[in-house]
């Protein structure tokens, strides 16, 4: 189990960070999202899905195909590298559908043995998994009728611009759908990852697999990789809070010199250090198909989901009033962290799952 970052991973991180810092700086996010008079965010707003940025990240940097073997049209790296990209996306909240397309849909297509994965790996097309973003053990409600799909799936992530939908149906089989459905935007707590309701009415569909284990594996992979995004969120929140407290002065002292705040940040740092270890462990275990991957995913999901929310909440509190304003990006991290806590199974769900996984019965 390698819990470190390889040199290649560090190079990948540097490239991704440079791109995101240049094209989607955090400080500009609140302004992009909504001016003072703007109402509900429009999920087709380029601020919420930036096709040019996505092309640069997915196709030019080649991150969309990291976990895809070269033979299948990918970069021949692994989920370890995908996890590094997610750390950077957690730090930047850049509006790109990496999780839905390069993690969820790609994992499902790979596990189902579909050649169509090459389209996602190249960045030419974008996909997602058509499940409510809060899904953990998903019970599909879409029906198959004569090779077409009908039904509704609510609160789907990264569906705004998806070309390919991987749709679970009753019984757990997966189908590929490219047309014959409608999208309705939801108003989401997380302003930087819009959710969409999908309605299928006799949509033409292509069977990917009848094995329900593929869906379970895809969801578990998503949760394990989401831990890296949560790590990135927590790191941004901790670092920006430390920076602010070093600068902000009250009572003729830097606020960061007050011991009660220092101790809270030391405790938070300790939790972030733990988050890094668990997120790496989960990514490594998933990349290598390790036998204890379900345990390590559960640990990472439980810990990182909790740490990201705590870091974002401390970030708001310790920024004082400025952190409560729309103009400061802190609230966007709080909203992302809280939504991620619900996404793909809450920390509590994953803790409960350990009862069976490690034989600690109720």
């Amino acid at each position, binding site marked *: 189990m390698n819990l470190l970052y390889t040199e290649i991973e560090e190079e990948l991180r540097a490239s991704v960070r440079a791109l995101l810092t240049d094209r989607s700086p955090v400080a500009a996010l609140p302004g992009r999202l909504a001016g003072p008079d703007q*109402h*509900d965010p429009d999920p087709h707003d380029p601020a919420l899905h930036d096709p040019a940025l996505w092309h640069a990240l997915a196709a030019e940097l080649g991150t969309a195909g990291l976990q895809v073997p070269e033979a299948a049209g990918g970069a021949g790296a692994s989920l370890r590298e995908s996890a590094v990209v997610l750390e950077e996306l957690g730090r930047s909240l850049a509006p790109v559908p990496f999780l839905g397309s390069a993690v969820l849909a790609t994992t499902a297509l790979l596990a189902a043995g579909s050649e169509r994965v090459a389209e996602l790996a190249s960045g030419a097309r974008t996909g997602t998994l058509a499940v409510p973003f809060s899904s953990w053990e998903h019970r599909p409600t879409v029906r198959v009728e004569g090779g077409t799909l009908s039904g509704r799936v609510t609160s789907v992530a990264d569906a705004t611009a998806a070309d390919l939908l991987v749709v679970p149906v009753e019984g757990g089989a997966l189908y590929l759908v490219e047309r014959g459905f409608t999208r309705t935007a939801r108003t989401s707590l997380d302003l930087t990852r819009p*959710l969409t309701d999908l309605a299928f009415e006799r949509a033409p569909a292509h069977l990917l697999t009848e094995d329900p284990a593929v869906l379970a594996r895809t969801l578990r992979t998503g949760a394990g990789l989401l831990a890296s995004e949560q790590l990135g969120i927590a790191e941004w929140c901790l670092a920006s809070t430390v920076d602010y407290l070093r600068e902000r002065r009250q*009572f003729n*002292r830097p606020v960061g010199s007050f011991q009660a705040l220092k101790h809270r940040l030391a405790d938070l740092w300790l939790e972030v250090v733990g988050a890094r270890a668990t997120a790496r462990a989960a990514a490594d275990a998933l990349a290598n198909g390790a036998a204890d991957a379900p345990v390590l995913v559960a640990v990472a999901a439980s810990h990182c989901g909790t740490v990201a929310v705590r870091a974002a909440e401390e970030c708001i509190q310790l920024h004082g009033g400025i952190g409560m304003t*729309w103009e400061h990006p802190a609230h966007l991290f709080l909203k992302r962290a809280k939504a991620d806590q619900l996404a793909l199974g809450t920390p509590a769900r994953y803790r409960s799952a350990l009862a069976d996984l490690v034989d600690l019965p109720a």
Partner: protein
Amino acid sequence: MSEPVSTDPVSTDLVDELRSRVRALLTEAWPNGAATQDVDALDFLRARFDAGLAWVHFPVGLGGLGAPRALQAVVDAELAAAGAPDNDPRRIGIGLGMAAPTILRYGTSEQQRRWLRPLWTGEEVWCQLFSEPGAGSDLAALATRALPGTDGVWTVDGQKVWTSSAHTARWAILVARTDPAVPKHRGITYFVCDMTDPGVEVRPLRQITGEAEFNEVFLTGVRIPDTDRLGAVGEGWQVAQTTLNNERVSIGGQATPREGGLIGIVARTWRTHPELRTAELHQRLLRHWVDAEVLRLTGERLRQQLAAGQPGPEGAGGKLAFARLAQELTGFEVELLGEAGLGYDDWTMVRPELVDFTGREAGYRYLRAKGNSIEGGTSEILRNIIAERVLGLPPEPRTDKDVPWKELAR
């Protein structure tokens, strides 16, 4: 003008007398009870003020009768029972809770007569120009300048922030620096600022919830006559202490029922949505329920202490405990909701007059509750106050108390 009531210890006689005064007021100014359509609410409120039944502990002539504060509850209950109009304390809370006690203590007779009656009736809304971008917890570091003129008029320049009601207010209580050459606590003066002055610019401050409850207020050459100063020049810090220590205390108010407040919302969701329940959420819900009941009983004990004339230090903790509970409960509620917790009701930028936790959805409550531990004194400052004033722990070494304000690093 009414006669003052007896100032003996609270007695049944006194309660009876207050009840009879309320009945007299109702007979005169609200003759047909709730069916009255032809009496203007404002007229009734003015009559109530003049009868000394606005705030019975205020002096005669200023809306009170010099009676014990605890007896206000008797008056309020009688008037509520009769369905008489009220002055909507939530809308004019800053005036009632902060400006009025300060005007009472530091104002001249003329100032008291000019401001208190329309303040209480709600004809004139008040706001508070205290916090600045560079002076939050460290309010005494404020940088807004007031320069004296030869014509008895001050000129004020600066920026204030976190001002609720600024766009509806007629008056503001304002602290400004009048002497930068002395230590920061000593160079401040307290004014009443006319919000209709052309130098006052109010801009909404959009916040985490999408709405703008608060405002930024830019003061550019605002003119304030010296007759609108409260307290002596350079003594504004002491005057401000009266303002800050007089948050409205609900003496003699009704006890909060069990499951009042946020816990009630969460408990109802739990009971009506069995499909959301898990063993883990159940245990956390029970913890939150206990915490809410502890806070309720703590508040009830405080209420009993105040009613018995034994105020204890426990009051200092109420806001701190409430903020923590509100944040935990609202975070739990979003998590409990699962998929529904991923949504938000409305990001529209509006300027609400009041914060209404119950009228919005879980996501709003979660975000708005984050402000509970920041606004009106951060939880960190409250912990300092409890540690030093209640527990008697020593202060930290200070480097800012004796240095001239202009020499402090910023």
